[in-house]
């Protein structure tokens, strides 16, 4: 869903994931340039806009919600976005980040920063966000409009989804495949 009378505006964000869904976004290859002819990428790790803008039509949110900062960020995104897409398996189910849930954050941090170092052991506390007790899917933090599963979703699926949600093209005749 987009606003009439202006070019569609979309964004991409990564929370706690591996960037693989963003790499699949880039795997649209030359279709990226076609997309850019019809719509503006107004916020993304690929561009230098530092504040999430108002009035975004579609945002692809990659990754699980795993820290206090993730919660804060995804709430801002929700408030400023018409269609929020839970983008990839980590956003949809918490997937790999949730492997830590049965263990809890403390033993993980202990293993990485105390047991496993030669010098200055200690869990980082300055300038880094706090881990949530459990890593959760995006819909646990804010309402989600569209779920796009896959590890990662294929470039074809991303392309067709964006065309449809941004109102650039009619829905494809063949159904989207997520396998």
């Amino acid at each position, binding site marked *: 869903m987009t606003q009439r009378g202006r070019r569609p505006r979309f964004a991409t964000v990564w929370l706690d994931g591996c960037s693989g869904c963003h790499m699949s976004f880039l795997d649209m290859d030359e279709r990226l340039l076609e997309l850019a002819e019809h719509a503006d990428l107004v916020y993304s790790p690929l561009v230098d806009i530092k504040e999430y803008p108002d009035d975004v039509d579609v945002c692809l949110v990659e990754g699980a919600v795993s820290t206090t900062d993730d919660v804060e960020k995804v709430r801002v995104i929700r408030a400023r976005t018409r269609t929020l897409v839970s983008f990839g398996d980590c956003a949809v189910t918490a997937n790999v980040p949730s492997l830590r849930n049965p263990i809890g954050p403390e033993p993980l941090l202990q293993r990485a920063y105390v047991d496993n170092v030669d010098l200055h052991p200690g869990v980082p506390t300055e*300038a880094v966000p706090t881990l949530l007790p459990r890593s959760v899917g995006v819909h646990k933090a804010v309402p989600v409009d569209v779920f796009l599963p896959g*590890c990662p979703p294929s470039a074809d699926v991303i392309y067709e989804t964006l065309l449809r949600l941004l109102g650039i093209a009619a829905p494809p005749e063949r159904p989207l495949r997520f396998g």
Partner: protein
Amino acid sequence: MHGQHGEIVIDPVTRIEGHSRITISLDEAGAVAGARFHVTQFRGFERICVGRPMHEMPAIMARICGICPVSHIVASSKACDEIMAVSPPPVAVSLRRVINLAQIVQSHALSFFHLSSPDLLFGFDAEPAGRHLFGVAARAPELARDGIALRRFGQTVIEILGGKRIHPGWVVPGGVSHPLQPDQRDGILDTVPEALAAVRRGLAWYRSRLAGFADEAGAFGTAPMLSMGLVHENGNAAYSDGDLRVVDPDGALLADRIDPKPYWDYLGEVAQPDSYLKSTYWKALGHPGGTYRVGPLARLNVVDRLGSAEADDRLGEFRDRVGRTPQSSFHYHEARLIEILHAITVIGRLLAAPEILDRRVQSMAEVNRSEGVGVSEAPRGTLMHHYRVDDQGLVTWVNLVIATGHNNEAMNLAVAEAAARYVDAGHLTEGMLNRVEAAIRCFDPCLSCSTHAIGQMPLEVELRGADGGLLDMVARP
């Protein structure tokens, strides 16, 4: 966000791969006192793999990073080879090399063309709203299309061999799961000339731009330090195999052709209070004297030659211009392009050998040792996976030393140097801060790999004096 003497915070750092922020601290006079690079994501793979079956490890390890999953699959499978006490069949060694080199092509293309070329095309002070790949496509369409084509080449090779572009399977403990088919080989070989032409154009373009960035080349992380990478027995560059070589800033050998597997004998790890990214150091020189670089520039510094004629010609020209062991991190960009040229050439060479179609591609075994280390060169540098397993093959302990961690100290020195050189606290501009970020972009850090969480939403950059008073403010669009 401001500290004892005032700080400038860049958050998030953009056009890099992962989550981070930079803090520039100011002294009481408002001058730059230092800068730090903070990685803000944490994932804990060293703990969450405990209890998993060894054979699952390559697939889980791939999920460390969607940018370089192949690097993790290769290092992980090599660690499992050790645990099974097998050598993969020779053709599997070659096929792993092909997919690992394809990874280097696509990742380097992403770093240079998609993320850094906007700075080199438009300049560091250009309007940020248009300073991205799509802006490049509008101004210099062939450059953007060459970047997309090179990344597509690498990703397509990975897809053909591994079944999908991101998180492929195929590389498994003992070798690879399927032999290469003739039509797959031919399909890749057909695209090699076009990819070579694209990287040649990219390299020529980069060299045509270089004169305009002499100042940045002298200030983006120039601290003298060691270089580390893998080399073959003959001194050529090694990516999937090989032994470690370490040279000092003058190129003198500190260690040569040593087995990388007992890495703990040579490398120490340090926790940082203000980052989820740990640092490493060369133990013989201690911390921080043993700070070193890894990745494309360090590899060019350690090798005698790459091992393919055209890339070695470009390497020779590079060395004639910037010295035998250049220390400016700005030159990572050119090193990356030269490595792309080399990698495409070697992919073509390996696939042209008739034995690449051999059908015996996997050595089968169960657990024969309780411990294994796998080492390879990822796009960003030397990667080490180290596992221990029980008699049933369940993982009991994991340690990962990731390329970006090796470069952590070097990146911190680079942001401090760039901030000191470019940030004028009295007259803050966006271009000054973009240069500090660009010093980080030279290293192409991969922060999903190195652990992480997410940065706060920055609304503007504020410059505050020692009393906390607002001196200047730049709102980034």
